[in-house]
């Protein structure tokens, strides 16, 4: 958990006004605490992610919301899918077999 300025120190190529805008655009959601923002690990990782997407894939500011929204949807789906899988795995063998039976065969 680090402060706003420490994030800037960590990523020297990142400018203050840029990071402010990212928070304003809700690309990054640091925690508001008293009169400042506190970045949890997930937020720092997200800052790094945005920097990487921008650098490695030349995604510009206009396309960034779309990219982030798609990524967030994928992670959300993965999370829900995992919960479902955990639930299935916790069932007795006969129920698991029934679910396996009920799965439609994917057509090539």
């Amino acid at each position, binding site marked *: 958990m680090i402060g706003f300025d420490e994030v800037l*120190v*960590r990523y020297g190529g990142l400018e203050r006004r840029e990071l402010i805008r990212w928070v304003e655009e*809700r690309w990054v959601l640091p925690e508001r605490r008293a009169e400042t923002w506190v970045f949890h*690990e*997930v937020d720092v990782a997200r800052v790094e992610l945005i920097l990487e997407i921008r650098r490695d894939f030349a995604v510009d500011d206009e396309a960034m919301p779309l990219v982030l929204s798609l990524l*967030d949807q994928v*992670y959300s789906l*993965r*999370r829900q899918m995992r919960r479902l899988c955990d639930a299935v795995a916790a069932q007795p063998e006969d129920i698991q077999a029934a679910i396996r039976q009920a799965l439609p065969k994917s057509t090539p």
Partner: protein
Amino acid sequence: MATQTPYEVLGVKPDASPDEIRKAYRKLAKQLHPDINPGKPEAEARFKQVSAAHDLLSDADKRARYDRGEIDESGAERPRYSYRPHAEGAQGWKYQPNGEMNPEDLEDILSMFGGGMGGPMGGGRAGRGRGQGFAMPGGDRLYALTVDFVEAAAGAKKRLSLSPDTWLDVTIPPGIDEGQVLRLKGKGGEGVGGAPPGDALIEIHVAPHPYFRRDGDNILLDLPVTVAEAVLGARVTVPTVTGPVAMTIPKGSDSGTQLRLRGKGIQRRGGAVGDQMVMLRVVIGDSGDPELASFLETWAEKHKTDPRRGMAS
């Protein structure tokens, strides 16, 4: 004080050219070199910092790695932050499009797929619930506002223009300091779908004053006085942040004497009140009045003193 980036240490922008970096380094190195600052440990420390910053930024490869966050400002490797484990970890919830779902509720999972499930599990309740109405609270907006020294000390009402026809009325509380941030609840970005708006965060900058300076809750002022006022004592008018006040200069005051105007410093809301510290500065003015000069010649003959006696040479 947070650690400075090497760019800040050299006082250059993050997109500075190698040439600008070299120039900035040479300039600082000349000022701070230990050989011309003997016995000044703070200059030496700064010099080391400046050299380290230059080492890192003058090497294109290292600079690029630093900009990417692969190494820190001392050049040490930094662990890479991979996003996936965080996104899927406990904190990842907040970046989910629909916010937190009830882990007990299978419908929430199924409704993500449009409620298109047949059979005993589908139908019925699909279309209810959080997945339908999209709501997101507004973001915070950050602004900067410069106030003058007296406004910061005594408090003020300011108007911050956001565009030609929108503004925020900001009440500056007395005693606000450089870099403090005021929060105006609900004055930030609009919320979506009935969610509350964000806040406006206003970072305050205090413009320097021509003669007042601030030291914690005290205000410092250098006050010029004449030789006659210093020797004979006087009643003079002194500016304070709340208006001029009368002050007595005691007879025989030296240059550098500090006088305290109690309660004339920074007034904190519901808290302590600072003082104004007035430092006397004797001014000769007009490079010596001939009358005074001839008087002093006679006077000095009769009063031989050496104020520097006892100083080691």
